[in-house]
């Protein structure tokens, strides 16, 4: 297998220029996909026979929840990459990613709670999915807190990486424990966002929306990494060149 792409992403200069070239395109593609998903989902998808039109919240809830999980997964993997291979880009990626993941977890919680009101009659139900997202949100807050608590960037990077790795190991344990705990306390009546067989009118817009979210988050992370790179590599000659090129 050819690993040059991996090494290229490890080079700050190469990444900065790559993000300059592709960031905007990815962002616009993401927006387009998301809008298509929204139009299809809000206007054309059928309403649910049980939940009525509130099911349309799925086009926000599911992508946000998926992103929240994927982002934490990515954080953990970046933590391992940093601790094992000392790759310089990994903590920059983590710094850019953590707040976005936290926002995604928050959006999933918020949409889940609002969806819960017409579905269950209360804003909050301690169901397995909402509870795990809540814990995930807390774990994000921990990582963001630790990233911002140290004056020494190196120590902050290492601390965040270690916590992300422990989080990655813990994630399946937490998920399993919460599901088990949930089955103990309330037999599942019906779980939001999960249908045995979803009609294509529903999952096609969902797919668009999910892909759109992924693209938007990718673009955002690229841009935030650029900012972080500018801060950390401010003395490097390539940064000076980029700064003159961008002008003001």
């Amino acid at each position, binding site marked *: 297998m050819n690993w040059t792409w991996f090494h290229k992403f490890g080079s700050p200069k190469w990444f900065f220029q790559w993000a300059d070239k592709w960031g905007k395109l990815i962002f616009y593609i993401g927006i387009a996909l998301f809008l298509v998903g929204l139009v299809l989902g809000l206007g054309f998808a059928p309403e649910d026979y049980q939940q009525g039109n509130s099911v349309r919240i799925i086009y926000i809830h599911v992508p946000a929840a998926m992103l929240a999980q994927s982002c934490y997964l990515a954080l953990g993997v970046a933590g391992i990459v940093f601790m094992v291979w000392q790759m310089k880009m990994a903590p920059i990626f983590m710094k850019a990613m953590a707040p976005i993941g936290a926002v995604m977890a928050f959006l999933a919680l918020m949409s889940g709670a609002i969806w819960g009101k017409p579905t269950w009659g209360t804003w909050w139900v301690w169901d397995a999915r909402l509870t795990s997202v809540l814990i995930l949100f807390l774990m994000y807050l921990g990582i963001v807190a630790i990233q911002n608590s140290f004056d020494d960037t190196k120590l902050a990077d290492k601390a965040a990486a270690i916590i992300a790795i422990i*989080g990655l190991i813990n994630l399946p*344990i937490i998920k399993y424990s919460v599901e088990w705990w949930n089955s103990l306390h309330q037999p599942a009546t019906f779980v939001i966002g999960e249908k045995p067989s979803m009609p294509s009118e529903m999952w096609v817009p969902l797919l668009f929306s999910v892909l759109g979210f992924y693209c938007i988050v990718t673009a955002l992370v690229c841009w935030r990494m650029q900012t972080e790179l500018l801060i950390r590599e401010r003395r490097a000659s390539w940064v000076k060149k980029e700064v003159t090129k961008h002008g003001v």
Partner: protein
Amino acid sequence: MTYLSFLKSELLAVFYRKQDTINALAFFLIVITLFPLGVNPSADFLEPAAGGIVWCAASLAILLSVESLFKEDFNDGSLEQLIASGLYLPITILIKLVIQWCAVIVPLLLLIPLFSQMLFLPWSIVHVLIFTLLLGSPALFLVGTIGAALTVSLKRGAVLVLLIILPFYLPVIIFATGAISAAQAGQDYSGQLAILGAISLLSLALSPGMSAVSIKASMN
């Protein structure tokens, strides 16, 4: 410095810091008192909630006692000496932790029969509570140590440790209280105990090494 002399001096340190152990137990007692006063003192509420209350109180007390595990050593230079001594850091951390565990958990276990009566936990269940504490608390100590090691150079790290470590305590709390409620319902609880043991073993495999890395990163 040898492992044995380090062990002796740690025992001595725990002996001199008796007040810390007493503080942890007092904190535990206060949290337990909060529930009857703050929620409901009737046996109807307390009996099913007892396991959860004890475990929440224990988690907080343990985390607070672990949080400052390396603080004093960091501030007086002992930690530097320990690193420069050539002893294998993960092992010394483990020694420290075992002593701390004994200092906090042993008195706690002795007091558990008393506390469980205050919470109306039936006598026939008390031993299950003790089992869960024996099997689950090592995981809490081990995971908490990583947080303590990471924040050792911070002046005010206590809240940060609580924030980053408590989410990792949730599975332990869930399975521990699960075992207790299973026992209360007259069901088999050995599965939950086995999971608690497994989590503790996993933490034992990971925590000393990660704590050592964290401590080394914190030196300046």
